[in-house]
């Protein structure tokens, strides 16, 4: 059960410590490695290089096969895991191999090769140190590149003691590596067959390349007389030029190395002590049909660097045994949908918080988060979705009347537990859920406050107008953020218009996996935007803004009128910081509070406008940079209710960073982040004030038009 696995992972101190320090060091190492390189350009290049149609892959395969066979190699096209396993078993049997050596191959984990060989009385020995440790521990890898990252030196020492029959000093890591060196050396010389994967398969000449650090792939391919290469079709590249470009990025994104210690380019039946026999086993297992799908085939551009796991805030907390199956991290969630049990895949998809950090870090330019999000929205309803979620998504969120009735009920029910517009603790629920103070339902909805505001402040003349979409958080909970906005914009003679009815943007339903409810909500929402959108559409919630910008065009592709509106909206939706920046105002900070800024995921990576850069010149010396300012706060909407333990731990890290700034105020421009961070600080009795940008600007700055 995922719940139990999460609890187990979170209570594992060793894992938590290892992952936390790894993630921090990785960030620094990766940045250093890419210095002098244009990462965005590399992403564009790699995305293009690995863009194949199904026909192209088949043609590359034919080309590879022709070249390899001309040099005496055997090439086999395996339909699925069982097919590949049987072929490999057959080769091993023909050579009387009772023992074989392997260098690391995720593809072999995918098809369960080791278990299959063992069932057929052949002993596979993993020679990559991390994989060998796991083999001894009978565990699965928890990371693509550092498989044993979850194991402590003590655990490794105990494992080695078992096989050596003597005491092993757990603090002498150098010595433990020596033990591996000597023990595994024997196996290279005893094995009759060596099995490897391949990082690239260059069709040009039928050559593969293996990228390693330890030297085990070199020995695996050199000592035994038989070499079997197991690889998915997606490893094929057209030319050496392409493979070298991928090689430039792979080690940098994987471990922050400029290049790995060894890159072995292997072609034909290269010499051995006897006649070398080389077999290539190309694996389909579901890859080929995916290549015919323009959206899904993006995932096959993966170069297996593991960086999506390295930057994922959820992975950092729970590790790869929870956040993935054979493959871990963001790509792991997607590949589990392709190659493994869909029920398991469905559960895993739910653990994506939606922060998009994976998408912007992927060297192959894959928008991983969108793929996870879209697959989740498409398949969730094949499995159990809690009834209350379905009711919320289908009946409440798309229906402003029902929503307002629900909020009335909420206002009534919350009376006993509300104090100062806050809910400190929800009774009768799991302790995990009460890790932060929550906002109460507002007394009056924002729409009502808006109507009251303009009734009481009648003016004849405004210089310009802006259309404001509030979203549910501000409409029903954080109404003050909206009111501050009205005041702020009034000072510069900007009139605010709002939709006749405020309908949810649709994201909560989509995130819950209810794609058709999301679509229903989106279409409903669009009805309340005019046909001709001639004003900027302002949002104070970047999640709503991001959804309008990116999801609306996607979900309305075959509804022409809605699509046209969506495209128009996409150009016009913007955050307050972007709006003010474009108005070219002089903004003067009138106080001396020290201020730091948290970057909401959907502001930086969704709306793609940096409020941080907007604020720095305004705050000057009073700005204190926040460490990892663009790292997720752990809210993720429904995520923080579904996975409160993970949300809470991510929040811990964010609060730790905020406290170290010693700032008086932490600013942000997302009501979800305000909820999470403010709720967390209050629960801990900490006094740093959390403010939305609208409130901060209204209270503490002066806006002037530049003549």
């Amino acid at each position: 059960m995922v719940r139990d696995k999460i609890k187990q992972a979170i209570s594992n101190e060793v894992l938590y410590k290892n992952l936390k320090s790894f993630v921090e060091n990785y960030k620094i190492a990766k940045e250093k490695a890419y210095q002098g390189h244009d990462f965005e350009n590399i992403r564009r290049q790699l995305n293009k290089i690995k863009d194949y149609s199904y026909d192209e892959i088949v043609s590359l395969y034919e080309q590879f096969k022709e070249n390899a066979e001309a040099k005496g190699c055997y090439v086999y096209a395996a339909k699925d895991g069982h097919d590949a396993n049987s072929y490999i078993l057959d080769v091993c049997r023909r050579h009387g191999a009772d023992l074989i050596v392997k260098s690391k191959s995720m593809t072999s984990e995918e098809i369960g090769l080791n278990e299959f060989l063992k069932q057929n009385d052949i002993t596979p020995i993993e020679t990559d140190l991390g994989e060998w440790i796991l083999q001894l521990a009978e565990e699965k890898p928890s990371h693509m590149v550092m498989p044993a990252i979850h194991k402590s030196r003590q655990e490794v020492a105990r494992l080695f003691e078992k096989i050596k029959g003597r005491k092993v000093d757990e603090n002498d890591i150098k010595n433990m590596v020596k033990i591996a060196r000597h023990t595994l050396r024997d196996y290279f010389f005893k094995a009759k067959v060596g099995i490897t994967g391949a990082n690239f398969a260059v069709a040009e000449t039928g050559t593969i390349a293996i990228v390693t650090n330890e030297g085990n792939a070199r020995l695996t391919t050199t000592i035994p007389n038989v070499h079997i290469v197991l690889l998915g079709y997606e490893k094929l590249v057209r030319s050496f030029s392409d493979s070298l470009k991928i090689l430039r990025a792979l080690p940098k994104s994987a471990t922050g190395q400029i290049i790995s210690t060894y890159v072995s380019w292997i072609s034909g039946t290269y010499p051995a002590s006897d006649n070398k026999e080389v077999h290539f086993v190309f694996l389909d297992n579901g890859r080929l049909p995916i290549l015919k799908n323009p959206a899904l085939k993006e995932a096959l551009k993966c170069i297996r660097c593991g960086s999506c796991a390295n930057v994922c805030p959820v992975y950092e907390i729970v590790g790869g045994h929870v956040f993935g199956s054979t493959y871990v991290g963001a790509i792991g969630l997607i590949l589990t949908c392709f190659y493994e049990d869909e029920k398991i895949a469905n559960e895993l998809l739910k653990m994506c918080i939606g922060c998009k950090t994976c998408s912007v870090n992927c060297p192959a330019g894959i928008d991983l988060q969108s793929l996870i999000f879209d697959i989740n929205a498409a398949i969730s309803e094949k499995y159990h979705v809690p009834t209350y979620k379905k009711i919320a998504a289908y009946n409440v969120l798309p229906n402003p009347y029902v929503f307002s009735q629900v909020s009335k009920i909420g206002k009534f029910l919350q009376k006993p537990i509300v104090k100062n517009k806050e809910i400190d603790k929800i009774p009768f629920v799991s302790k995990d859920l009460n890790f932060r103070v929550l906002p109460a339902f507002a007394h009056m909805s924002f729409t009502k406050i808006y109507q009251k505001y303009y009734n009481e402040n009648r003016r004849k003349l405004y210089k310009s107008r802006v259309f404001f979409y509030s979203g549910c958080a501000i409409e029903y909970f954080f109404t003050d953020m909206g009111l501050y906005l009205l005041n702020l914009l009034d000072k510069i003679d900007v009139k605010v218009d709002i939709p006749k009815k405020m309908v949810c943007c649709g994201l909560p339903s989509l995130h819950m996996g209810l794609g058709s409810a999301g679509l229903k909500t989106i279409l409903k929402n669009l009805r309340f935007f005019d046909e001709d959108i001639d004003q900027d559409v302002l949002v104070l919630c970047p999640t709503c803004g991001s959804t309008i910008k990116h999801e609306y065009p996607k979900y309305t592709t075959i509804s022409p009128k809605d699509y046209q509106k969506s495209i128009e909206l996409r150009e016009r939706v913007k955050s307050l910081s972007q709006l003010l920046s474009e108005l070219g105002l002089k903004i003067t900070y009138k106080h001396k509070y020290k201020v730091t800024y948290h970057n909401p995921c959907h502001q930086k990576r969704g709306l793609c406008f940096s409020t941080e850069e907007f604020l720095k010149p305004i705050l000057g010396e009073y700005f204190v940079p926040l460490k990892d300012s663009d790292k997720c706060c752990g809210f993720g909407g429904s995520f923080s209710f579904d996975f409160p333990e993970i949300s809470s731990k991510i929040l811990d890290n964010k609060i730790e960073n905020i406290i170290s700034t010693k700032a008086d105020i932490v600013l942000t421009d997302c009501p979800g982040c305000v909820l999470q961070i403010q709720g967390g600080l209050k629960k801990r009795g900490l006094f740093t004030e959390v403010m939305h940008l609208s409130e901060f600007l209204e209270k503490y700055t002066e806006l002037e038009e530049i003549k």
Partner: protein
Amino acid sequence: MVEKFIMYSKAVGNKNFLVKEEDLREKGFEKKYDIAYLPSFSLVKMLDVGRNGISSAIVEADYGIAETGSVVINSLDFQLRKATCLADKLDIVIFRSKIVESLEDIEEFLRDLTKKNAYIAFITGASRTADIERVLTIGVHGPCETNIFIVEDR
């Protein structure tokens, strides 16, 4: 370009030496090594390496890549390949004129050699792992030490 090569080579822990051709033609130079493969100096001393490996080998590289501090060695020869895998100390000789700027500069070499049977190795430093608690350890399944000798031939 040599400076760039040395910078990246140093970064992975290699000791780098600029030498003259005469230094390597010194009488008995190859006696320091169990295996020597320096065809440009007509110095070839091979043996069949077994499970216990050898203490040291000195091998001539075909190219050096400044971008990454790597050497490129045509490792088709079985004995030579075993030597580079199983030597505890691997010293590498590279002519200054054979150091190229970037990975793409090796493209043609790779294409040409792989038209037939081939095994080409890019080697950057000594074998390493960080698989135990991410503590970097040098010397796993390959050499524990590599030194680079750059021959000034220009």
